[in-house]
């Protein structure tokens, strides 16, 4: 346990914008009204507006200073498993900000937005082709939102057949937490299916639960151990024979571009994460984008609206694109047209890769992961050790170093200049370190990371305090999370005497 000095007032490294505020300052000025002033509704006005006051240069320096406290893909290697922290190409930021896209109101008449609609239509077609599915919605705002849409579509399918006894969703024990949360949020009963000793879905356990109350199964493939389920077709067959549908969590699609189509394997629904697979930036926690692809049988249930050709190409005129509602749609899942800015980035990325480039992405992502796995497996125990896909899971613990945990390894990596892997996930591995290098890292970076990991494994045995006290070379040390949860300071204000300053 880290000791925290709670008796002295904490040292302020960078004041908040509230602490930087000075009465009378502003960072933007606006012209006086060019129309007569209307009477204000006195009884409906607020008495005070306690927001900070700063000049533009104050604001710039404050946020630039804050930015220097962040680790990012632009600053270094970020092998955060299941998050696909690949390089985010700069051109994508430029294309998404083209005035022809950025200044478009979502409710404009379609005749004025044909460029945007054509781009969305084309992206729909490409994402269908890459996964082998027949229909798509671009609406979902993130992966978890896509899961929710997928589960709604599955339920709508059963409801449409008047099969109302189906209330059970099967989820492997290795699944992301969003899978059970999504199912529960949709009112379903979640049944967990164990993994077998090779990290595949346990077929016996699956057969035992595959009955006529099944909505379906949510399966990530490759799974969160970074392993391709060797029985995936059999898993799909068992679920289908019970009348259920197979949901594919597309979190790990970076392993499968041009390698396999999820629809060919037997899946009925899948969500993409454009922010993982197709390089749209993670933005410090969002925005994401989670398009959902489905088989022809499920197309009519997709959320509204989707982009379609509403008037075919004729007489030398291009086709007219528009927004349409599927016939038995589950409804609208957010306002307007999805995360359009992310579509422009993903479109740019796919256009610049083509079919061969997409396959290269997955081949090299898998090459990089297996290279790290090979070089680390002697120093770190890998519980399910076989050829991995784009990531693998090692353990951050040793029998002969009992005080060391995965968290300590993670924190020590920061001292060596790396972002740590995901730790403590998946839950079926003790002290998990989930490592996903992505295809955009060169051999030199991977070798430097291996060197640091091997050094840390050595330090764990020879000087464990280096790990317990880490990180020491970062701008901040370990956080007192107990204090944060106990005191719950979630907001700051201007000082009480602010107006008198």
């Amino acid at each position, binding site marked *: 346990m880290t000791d925290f000095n709670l008796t002295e007032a904490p040292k302020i490294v960078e004041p908040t914008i509230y602490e930087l505020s000075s009465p009378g300052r502003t960072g933007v000025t606006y012209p006086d009204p060019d129309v007569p002033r209307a009477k204000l509704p006195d009884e409906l006005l607020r008495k005070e507006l306690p927001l900070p006051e700063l000049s533009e240069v104050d604001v710039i320096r404050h946020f630039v200073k804050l930015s220097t406290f962040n680790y990012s893909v632009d600053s270094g290697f970020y092998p955060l498993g299941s998050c696909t922290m690949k390089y985010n190409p700069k051109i994508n930021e430029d294309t998404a900000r083209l005035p022809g*896209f950025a200044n478009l109101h979502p409710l404009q008449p379609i005749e*004025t937005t044909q460029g945007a609609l054509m781009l969305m239509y084309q992206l729909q077609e490409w994402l269908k082709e890459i996964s082998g599915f027949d229909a798509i919605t671009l609406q979902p705002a993130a992966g978890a939102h896509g899961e929710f849409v997928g589960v709604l579509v599955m*339920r709508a399918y059963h409801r449409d057949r008047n099969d109302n006894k189906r209330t059970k969703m099967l989820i492997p024990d290795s699944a992301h937490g969003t899978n059970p949360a999504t199912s529960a949020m949709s009112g379903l009963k979640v049944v967990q299916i164990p993994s077998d000793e090779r990290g595949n879905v346990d077929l016996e356990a699956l057969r035992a639960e595959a009955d006529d109350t099944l909505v379906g199964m949510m399966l990530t493939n490759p799974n969160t151990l970074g392993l391709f389920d060797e029985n995936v077709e059999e898993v799909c067959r068992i679920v289908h024979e019970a009348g259920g549908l197979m949901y594919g969590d597309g979190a790990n699609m970076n392993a499968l571009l041009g390698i396999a189509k999820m629809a060919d394997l037997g899946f009925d629904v899948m969500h993409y994460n454009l922010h993982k697979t197709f390089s749209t930036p993670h933005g410090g926690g969002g925005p994401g984008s989670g398009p959902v692809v489905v088989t022809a049988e499920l197309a009519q249930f997709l959320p509204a609206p989707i982009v379609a050709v509403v008037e075919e190409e004729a007489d030398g005129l291009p086709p007219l694109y528009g927004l349409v509602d599927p016939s038995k749609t589950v409804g609208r899942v957010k306002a307007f047209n999805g995360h359009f800015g992310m579509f422009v980035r993903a479109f740019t990325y796919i256009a610049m890769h083509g079919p061969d*480039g997409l396959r290269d992405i997955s081949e090299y992502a898998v090459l990089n992961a297996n290279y790290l796995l090979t070089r680390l497996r002697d120093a770190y125990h890998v519980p399910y050790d076989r050829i991995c896909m784009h990531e693998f899971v090692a353990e951050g613990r040793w029998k002969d170093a009992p005080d060391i945990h995965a968290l300590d390894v993670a924190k020590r990596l920061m001292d060596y200049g790396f972002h740590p892997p995901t730790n403590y996930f998946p839950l079926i591995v003790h002290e998990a370190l989930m490592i996903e290098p992505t295809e955009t890292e060169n051999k030199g970076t991977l070798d430097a990371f291996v060197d640091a990991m091997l050094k840390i494994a050595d330090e764990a045995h020879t000087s464990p305090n280096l790990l317990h006290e880490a990180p020491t070379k970062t701008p901040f040390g370990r956080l007192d999370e107990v204090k944060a949860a106990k005191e719950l300071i979630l907001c700051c204000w201007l000082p009480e005497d602010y107006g008198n300053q």
Partner: protein
Amino acid sequence: MTYIPHSPKERDEMLATIGVESLEDLFKAIPAVHRYPDLDLPPALTEMEAAAELSEIALANETTNDLVSFLGAGVYNHYIPAAINHLLLRGEFYTAYTPYQPEISQGTLQAIFEYQSLIANLTGMDVANASHYDGATAVAEAVNMAMSQFRNKRTRIVMSAGVHPQYRATTDTYTQFSDMEIVGAEAGPSSTPDALAELINENTALVVVQYPDFFGRIFDYTKLGETAHEAGALFCVVANPTALGMLKTPGEMGADMVVGEGQPLGIAMSYGGPYLGFFTTREKYVRKMAGRLVGESVDSRGQRAFVLTLTPREQHIKRERATSNICSNQGLLALAAGIYMSLLGQTGMRQVAELCYHKAHYAAERIASIPGFELCHDEPFFHEFAVCCPGSVEEINAHLLEHGFLGGYDLGQDYPELENHMLVAVTEKTSKEEIDALVEILSEVSHD
């Protein structure tokens, strides 16, 4: 292989280290029959070609730069100060992930803490979370939170017809497999808070209104909030953040939750997203609120620092017992909104609100003076108002478009009783000349 850095020699060394012959050998776990499918996609473009192609596609759109816009309905064409984009383009912000490692994420964490503070202060509430996807899903999450508060024992939601139609549609989608009954739309689009109060009963979990409402009207909801509380229900206000630069806060009116669309706070319209769903509540409900939260703490060196807190509420810990599956926030958009409010401050936020108000009132007065056109409502309004037109809005808008104007939103699309009604939006960017020109073209319509 634009972004893949391996030389053939390095690739071969790595394959040898792994102990396989070729890249193909890494994929033997995949059923051979499905391995390496053909992808029918166009061949790769270079960056130069892609830049040209995307520019061409963008030029096929007519934007609010090319047209004079009076379109709002939940998305507003406000001025975005230049500093915002320059800060958003710092890779340290936009290429970072969720700040799960606080030692190397204090930039994101402090920025979110400041965003939470700004939103809480703007809405007059105790606490804001790190954000939801957009205004619509924030409303759906408010419903979700109310359902969880009453453990699904109360099954009625009273939602005003003045809540954005797409937000109501989204809520319907979210609740379709639950026992929730959503009432309020039948009171009709012109209904007042008093009509809504009559629908509140002992089975009501939540009352939802919009402020200003979808038609731009401003009501003081204090009494409605009291009625909701007397019935033991929660009270949620969907607010426009620009309007809060001058208007009484929903916090003062007794709201338990204030949610809404943060797009007006310095976020590009970008054909519908990504935007920002803000979500605030009272301190006593903070543990029921979904979504990420940043709290203040200290680090091992005695420095003030920030960290994600109350995470046991969230899906990655609680799994099937979590009330929401959300596992992201609109991080970069929350940053944009935080920068926007920091730049404008008290003075700028008030100025923008008042400019919108004065210009909208000028526009309303001028339009109402055209024969055949009249304002639908006589309540106070903010920067948007409903106009009853002498003919079809679709035809009027087609005529306006020919003159380079984007007309207002056709209310008949969502409210059958409001056929021939147009919702006109005005912002600080709209000039008197543009309003006068609109009035001139509308006058031609009225003479047709």
